[in-house]
C-alpha cells in the first residue's frame, strides 16, 4: 500500500517535471553502427557527406558504365527523364512539352541545370537509390564523380572541379532561388467567402 502510493507520487512528479520522459519504455537504443548504416540522407548543409572526392573527368567513365544505358551519355535521353539541359529562363516559352504521352499529359523537362535547387540532393539520391537496377552499389568516390559529371554537363561546374564533402554544398545551383511556399487555397474560394 505504502509502496504503491510512493510509486504513484513518483509517477506524478515525473510527468510534471519531464513531460517527455518515456511512458512505455518499449524498444531499445540503436547502436552507432545501426544509425550509420541507414543515416544516408544528405541535407543542403552537406552534414553526413563521407570522405572521398571526384571530378567530372573521372565521372564520365562512371556515368558511361553505370548510368548511360538509361540516361544517355550526358543525361539527355528522354526515355525516363531528361536530366541535362539548361533551358532558362523558366517560362511558358521555354516550357513547351518535349513529348505528349496520354498518361503523363505533356510536361516540361525540368533538368538538374534548369530546376534542381541543391547539389546535395543529387549526391544523396545517387548514393541511396541509383543505379535503378543496383541501388546503393556505388562507392562514395563513384558517387562524387558521377555527381560532378552531371553538374558539369549541365553547365554548373568545370570539368576539373573537385567535388567533396566541403565543395559540394557550396555549388551554386542556377535555380537555387526559384522556389516559393505553397500559396493555396489560390483558387476555389467560395463566392460568398465574406459571409463565412
Amino acid at each position, binding site marked *: 500500500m505504502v509502496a504503491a502510493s510512493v510509486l504513484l507520487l513518483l509517477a506524478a512528479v515525473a510527468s510534471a517535471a519531464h513531460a517527455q520522459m518515456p511512458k*512505455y519504455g*518499449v524498444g531499445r537504443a540503436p547502436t552507432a553502427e545501426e544509425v550509420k548504416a*541507414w*543515416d544516408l540522407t544528405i541535407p*543542403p548543409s552537406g552534414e553526413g557527406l563521407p570522405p572521398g572526392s571526384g571530378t567530372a573527368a573521372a565521372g564520365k567513365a562512371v556515368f558511361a558504365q553505370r548510368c548511360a544505358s538509361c540516361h544517355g551519355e550526358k543525361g539527355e535521353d528522354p526515355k525516363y527523364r531528361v536530366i541535362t539541359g539548361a533551358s532558362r529562363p523558366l*517560362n511558358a516559352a521555354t516550357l513547351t512539352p518535349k513529348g505528349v504521352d496520354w498518361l503523363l499529359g505533356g510536361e516540361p523537362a525540368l533538368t*538538374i541545370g534548369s530546376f*534542381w535547387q541543391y547539389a546535395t540532393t543529387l549526391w544523396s539520391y545517387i548514393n541511396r537509390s541509383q543505379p535503378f537496377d543496383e541501388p546503393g552499389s556505388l562507392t562514395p568516390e563513384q558517387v562524387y564523380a558521377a555527381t560532378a559529371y552531371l553538374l558539369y554537363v549541365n553547365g554548373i561546374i568545370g570539368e576539373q572541379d573537385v567535388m567533396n564533402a566541403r565543395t559540394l554544398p557550396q555549388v551554386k545551383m542556377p535555380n537555387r532561388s526559384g522556389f516559393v511556399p*505553397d500559396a493555396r487555397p489560390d483558387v476555389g474560394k467560395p463566392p460568398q467567402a465574406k459571409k463565412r
Partner: protein
Amino acid sequence: MDHSVPKSGPASREPSRRRFMKGGVALGAAFVAGAARPGPGDTQPAPDDASKVVGGPMSPYSDRSRFEGAVKEKGPPFLPDEWGGNFTPLADTLGIITPSGLHYEVCRGGIPDIDPKKHRLLIHGMVDRPLILTLEDLKRLPSTSRIVFLECAGNTRTEWRAPRAPSVKFTHGLTSCTEWTGVALSLLLREAGVQKGAAWIVAEGGDATGNERSIPMAKAMDDILVAYGQNGEALRPGNGYPLRLLVPGWEGNVNTKWLRRIKVVDKPYMTRMESPDHTSLMPDGKARQFLFVMEAKSVITFPSGAQRLPGPGVYEITGLAWTGRGLVKRVEVSADGGKTWRDARLQEPVLRFAHARFRLEWRWDGREAVLQSRCTDETGYVQPTLAALVKVRGLNTVYHNNAIQSWKVAADGNVTNVHV
C-alpha cells in the same frame, strides 16, 4: 461498367494502352465475356440452378467470385513494371472503402520483399533517446484505427491540357480509401523525446528508392499514424508492408511506405522527392514547394468514361468526394455542363479525411448531357473548374489537379471524357 481484361499469363505484359482499347471494344458484351471466363481451377459453366447442387469447399483465405474481374492497371506503359502508378478501378468500387487488393499503388523501385520479424523502425536525430522498434514493440503500444483516403499528388495529371485518359480509372484512379490501424507518431516521438529546435522529421522507406520526405513537426505531432493495418489485416506489400506512415489529408508521397527510419531535424532535407519533384512550376517561372494538402475534389464514377448507358430512363449517378482539409460538406451534380446544379445525397457517416460517397437519381431523356460533380468542404472551399485553375497556375504545375471532371453522355449512350 468498366470491366477490364484481368491480368493473366502473357496478356499482362501487353502495354496497358492496347489492353485498354480491347477492353473498350468488349464493353457491351462485358457480362457475357465475364460469364464465359474460366475461374481459377474451374472451367465449367455455373449450374443453371445453384440450389440443386452442393457448392464448393470453403477456403482458408477467400477469393472473390470467378465472375468478378475488376483489376488495377499499371501505367504509364513505357515504364518498367516496378515503376509508375497502379490505378484503382474506381468505377467498380462501391461505398467508401477500397478493397485492399484494389488500393492504388505508386512505386519507383518495385515492391520490396520484407520479413516483418527482421523489420526495424529507427527514430533518431534531435531526440533525447534514439529508438529501434520492432513490429512486436509497436503492437504493444496503444493503437487506433481510422478511415482515411490517400491520393497521389499526380492524380489527374493527364488532364491539364486536354481530356486524355479514357476512363475514371486513369483520370482519378490514384486515390483510394482504407481503414488504417497503427500507433500515433506523436506517441513514438514523445517516447524518443524531441529536443528543442526540432522543427521537421525526415521519413525514409526501406525499399530500393528509399522514398524520403521532410514533414513539419506540427503535423507529425498532430494526426500522423505509423500504420501496420489495412482494412482489418496487415498492410498489403504494395501499400507498405509491414509499416508505413499515414498522413491524413496530405499528398500520397509523404505517406512513406516500408517505413524504416524517422530522423528528427531542424530544417527540411530537400530530398529528390520534395526538391525537384512534387513542386509546381507557376507561370512566372517560380515553383511552389511543399504542397502537402490535397484540396477538395470529387468525381462521378457512374456514369463515367468508357461506360455506355443502354437507353433513356432512370439511373443513379454516383461518385466519390474528398478533401484534405477535413470534412466534405456538400456535393452538387450538374447534368448540363455546370449551368444548373442539384445537391447529391451523402452516404452517412461522412468521415473527416475519408472518401464520401454521393448519389443522385437522374432521369436521362436520351439527349446529349454533360455530367459534373462539385465538392464543397468544411472550410467553404469549392472545387474549382479546370479553367479557373489554369488561369492562376498555368499548364506546367503537373500536380494537384482537383478540377471539376466532365463526362459527356452521347445520344447513343456512350460516355466520354470531355473538357467544357
